[in-house]
């Protein structure tokens, strides 16, 4: 769609090429010292941020005995594959199930949630209807209420309705993202010109088709941004899952690892499993993050900076 080229996905911060490429020439020797200092500080902080993940990687190659016996940053017997096998075999492969559950709770739920939010935000922007601003006020109130504080009330109601300990108990709450509606309205104002919709209507397209085939492609960058917000919230959702789920076959991966960790005192052989399980759960997220960086950053900075 040609219109897409006209809609930059993000407000990229303007670069300032002049400043970068022409460092002042004077005071060169002092410049070198401070350059070393600055980069030294940056490197030390990078060690801090990367160290835990590095340790996780190394620890995942060790047997339970080596975990406690060897230097944490040196390699012991290379047990990575054995650990991985143990992880996948434990309890009839319950870990794989957790991964799939997590996929459901994050990717599927976020996709649906984003579609719902975008449709709603689009309607707020492009249609006049009675009480529009009042309804939008409701959305804004929703933005003010952190999902954590609704969690216990939600549990109480779900248990009254008999929904506790089902997929629905975690899925349904994650479909609601008032902030996504708010963002979608802003994106719709910016990305979807009214004339284009008029043109589509003139050509005889119905409202739903106009939304699906004209507006939605133009909103694609906003869609990804809202999706990522929702995705982050859902993969971080531990409090909700902890309350709602008892049956370990329904756990997302973080709840499963938490429960294993609860038992490491009695069953120390669970240590390597928790460690390699964390690694296996984190790697896809890091890969996804590296691939989607552009959207991540644009969403992050979309509103925070003018």
């Amino acid at each position, binding site marked *: 769609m040609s219109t897409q080229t006209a809609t*930059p996905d993000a407000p990229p911060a*303007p670069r300032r090429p*002049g*400043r970068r490429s022409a460092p*002042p020439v004077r005071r060169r020797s002092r410049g070198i010292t*401070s350059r070393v200092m600055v980069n030294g500080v*940056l490197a030390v902080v990078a060690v*801090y*941020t*990367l*160290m*835990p*993940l590095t*340790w996780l990687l190394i620890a995942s190659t060790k047997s339970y005995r080596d975990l406690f016996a060897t*230097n944490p*940053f040196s390699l012991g017997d290379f047990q990575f594959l054995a650990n991985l096998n143990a992880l996948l075999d434990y309890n009839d492969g319950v870990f794989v199930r957790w991964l799939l559950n997590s996929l459901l709770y994050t990717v599927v739920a976020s996709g649906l949630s984003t579609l719902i*939010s975008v449709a*709603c935000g689009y*309607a707020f*922007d*492009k*249609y006049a209807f009675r009480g529009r601003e009042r309804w939008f006020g409701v*959305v*804004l109130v929703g933005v*003010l209420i*952190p999902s954590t*504080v*609704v*969690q*216990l*009330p939600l549990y*109480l109601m779900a248990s009254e309705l008999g929904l506790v300990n089902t997929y629905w108990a975690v899925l349904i709450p994650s*479909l609601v993202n008032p*902030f996504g509606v708010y*963002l979608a309205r802003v994106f719709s*104002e910016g990305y*979807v*010109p*009214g004339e284009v*919709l008029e043109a589509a209507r003139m050509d005889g397209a119905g409202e*739903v088709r106009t*939304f699906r085939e004209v507006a939605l492609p133009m909103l694609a960058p906003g869609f990804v941004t809202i999706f990522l*917000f929702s995705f*982050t*919230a859902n993969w971080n959702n*531990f*409090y909700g899952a902890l*309350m709602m789920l008892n049956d370990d076959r329904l756990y997302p991966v973080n*709840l499963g690892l*938490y429960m294993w960790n*609860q038992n490491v005192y009695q069953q120390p052989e669970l*240590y390597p499993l*928790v460690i390699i399980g*964390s690694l296996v759960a984190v790697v896809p*997220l890091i890969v996804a993050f590296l691939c989607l*960086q552009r959207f991540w950053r644009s969403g*992050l900075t*979309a509103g*925070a*900076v003018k």
Partner: protein
Amino acid sequence: MAAPLARPAKAPAPQAAPPPTGPAGPSGPAASLGPGNPGGPGTRRGQRRAVALFTVPFFALFTAVTVLPMIYAAWMSLYREESSGLGFGGTERAFAGFGNFTEALGSEAFLRSFGNIALYCALYIPAMVGGALVLALLVDSTMARARRFFQIAYFLPHAVPGLIASLIWLYLYTPGLSPITDALDALGAQWNFFGQDEAIFSVVNISAWQWTGYNMIIFYAGLQAVPREVLEAATVDGAGALRTALQVKIPMIRPTVVLTLLFTCVGAIQLFDAPKLVQLRANTMGEDWSPTMFIYTAAFKGHDYGLAAASSLLLALVAGLLSFVVTKLGNRWKAS
């Protein structure tokens, strides 16, 4: 997760996205329903149907998972479970009026949990926001190399789910497993990550690890948007890098920094994952260290649903007020 959970979702709210392309022409309802709109009543009905189709799913779900639970919790909070005899005869629900609210507000543990969060904020916010600001300024300075690498390295912890981050750090605090405790031992230093006084630092560190890079990226984007002429003018006036940073750059991103401070407070009030895990080894913290932990414990250990519901409503009130103030301040800056 609690803290992070809400924060990213909210961060941009008040200053929300100035649409990059700008509203191109008359967008919005006036354009789509204007008098010149061909079609007549049929189209109009189609549009009304479309509005319903697009907005009802959201509002139906919103009612189901936010409005109704709050109403239900308000009702629950007026009752108290009273066990008959030794508890074998089951419990019955007795009307308690505002008894649960007075119990929560009179409960030392509930009040202390807010005190803990206040102390946590006092330690965490200067360290995290200050750290993020310094890092952003350093990466933005002309002296930094490998900017891209540093940004990715700092942001990477944010990709780790909050609970797993807490779990990794829990192991990094555990003597025997941890390279850190080994190193400290080698240096002859004494530091018990799970000690009575030290535990809060262990919690602060987990949050700082997760959030410093995230906020650094936000600040850095702000710094990148500082107009070049302003910086050139400062250089012409003879300001060095440090002075430019302190007197030109920081004032220009001040609204972003203040907003981050406020959002961090909103996040802090929901803190759960990190203290929950640290508390597994740091017995002195107690299972009701933060307000969310208090609620969880009241409901799932004490089975006192009335008290848990009342505390939830109180927490919702505090969090809602806090977010409201944040949004108002944000809008004021947006306007100015």
